[in-house]
């Protein structure tokens, strides 16, 4: 059964790139949203095995704020932050990781697999 990955990224080309890299392996099925608000809405309706979270999401909530809300709702799905900016302080969150842009598709797939594997 394929693992479900939620990609929260306002740049749709990048989101598509991540999506294709992950789906190419055959182990994952990706769902893309472009804002934190949409991500929260989707998370209310469905469960995911891993979330890829961009930090700068344009207007509205940013990635860190969205993560904060997700954790407030008791959702501890692994979250991988992906950003061109340096990693923010993520010590307040459990089960989060950070990848710096630009990154090779292989590295993304490896990190997703690792996060899901460690997730109880």
């Amino acid at each position, binding site marked *: 059964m394929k693992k479900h990955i939620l990609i929260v990224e306002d740049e749709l080309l990048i989101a598509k*790139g991540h999506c294709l890299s992950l789906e190419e392996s055959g182990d994952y099925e990706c769902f893309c949203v472009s804002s934190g608000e949409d991500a929260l809405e989707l998370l209310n309706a469905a469960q995911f095995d891993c979330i890829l979270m961009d930090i700068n999401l344009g207007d509205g909530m940013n990635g860190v704020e969205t993560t904060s809300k997700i954790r407030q709702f008791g959702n501890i799905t692994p979250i991988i932050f992906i950003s061109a900016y340096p990693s923010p302080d993520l010590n307040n969150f459990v089960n989060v990781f950070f990848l710096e842009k630009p990154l*090779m598709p292989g590295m993304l797939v490896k990190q997703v697999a690792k996060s899901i594997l460690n997730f109880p």
Partner: protein
Amino acid sequence: VNTKKITIFSILIFFIALMLTVFVQNYTHSRKTHDHIKSILTREDENLKLSYYQILSSLVLAQERMVKRWIKSGRQTHADWLMDAISYVTDIKSYHAIYITDKDKQFIWSYPVDHFNPTFSSNQFDDHLKNRESWISPLTVTVDDAHFSVVSPIWIDDNLSGYVVGLLSLKSIFKQIQIDDFLIEVIENHKTAFSNHQLSINTPFISEEILFQNQRLQYKIFLEPALYKELMATPRSSYLIGLSISLIVALLVYIASISKFQSTLDRQKLLEKRALLYELHHRVKNNLQTIISLVEIYIQGETEKLQVEKYRTLQKKIISMALVHKLLYKTPSLEQVDVEEFIKLLIAEISKYSQDGENNVEVALLCEKIYFPMDKIIYLGLILNEVISNLFQNYPQCPKKLSIEHRDKFFKIVIKAIGLKTTNTVFWSNFKEGKTILDVIMRQLKGNYQFHENHDFIFEIELPV
């Protein structure tokens, strides 16, 4: 804050400084003048053995007493009072001398000192005055050949009716403060009479109370004469000094403010530029990620394995360029990049992409620090990235050493993979595009490279100084 505000502020400071300096100088000058006058007044007369100030105290008191006595006597005419005064003086007969003038200020009478009582104590004198209702000046006077020695003016109605002895020695003060012309005349006319006098004064009236009165008198005297005004007037030099000091202060304030303003402006501009560079750097990284994603979309549409591999290689090159870009962003100077530091950072970054993420490359600088300009370091970064990435990717377990040397007109970078037995052909078989890139870059940098196929894998790059 702008330069206009700073100028206004400096002008304001100038006027404040001017006012302050002039005020301070005025005050200092006025204090000095007062002190000078006071020093004269308190200077002890060698003959009198008393300070002028003390003498003045006695005289004023004597004057007051004589006036009181006049009022108390109820005499209305000058002649009556004069006679009365003379009778009192002659009645007392001891230890006093009086110089009496008529209403036209003509010298008419003086009382010679016939009785001198040097041991007369203040208490005794007080009793004496009380008992006899004496109005007379509390002076005891010794005069050798003069009839009077100390003079105090007594003012009754419009006439200067008398002088209690004693003012002779005060001439030096009063001539400075423009005293009554008449008094000077009297003193001048009788100079010879005063010239050899010996005067000592014992008075019980030099008390706090009297001193206080005299203090008031002192100021009264010095406030009235025109000379006092002249003395107290602020000298022109004070204004010039004040003006100079104020100008200097205002100028310093202006320079300091402008300098601070300029440095704040510079810092602000620097911060803006830094913020812009920061944003730009991360925009570039984001754009490179977009290109990688675009290539990924191309890969999905490709069926031929060879093409896919080429696309993957392209993605790696983008990552390489991003890596060099990231390192350059971290270096403090774009003109003088520390080669050793740059290589260490590069290897640390490349190792993140290795299979186990371990960095097993030992870097050694075998010469003094080397600095490359930005355009040169970019290409060096690309070369090293090609070679080291290949080693990490295909021979991850193999320990590696990188050394930097300076030989004549060349810098030599040696990469050694210990225990790795491979040939030039085998090494580049997985890395064909890398070799092409290496050749092109070496041509551009006017350097060269070579392999040594011994027990260890050795790759050498030579770059001109």
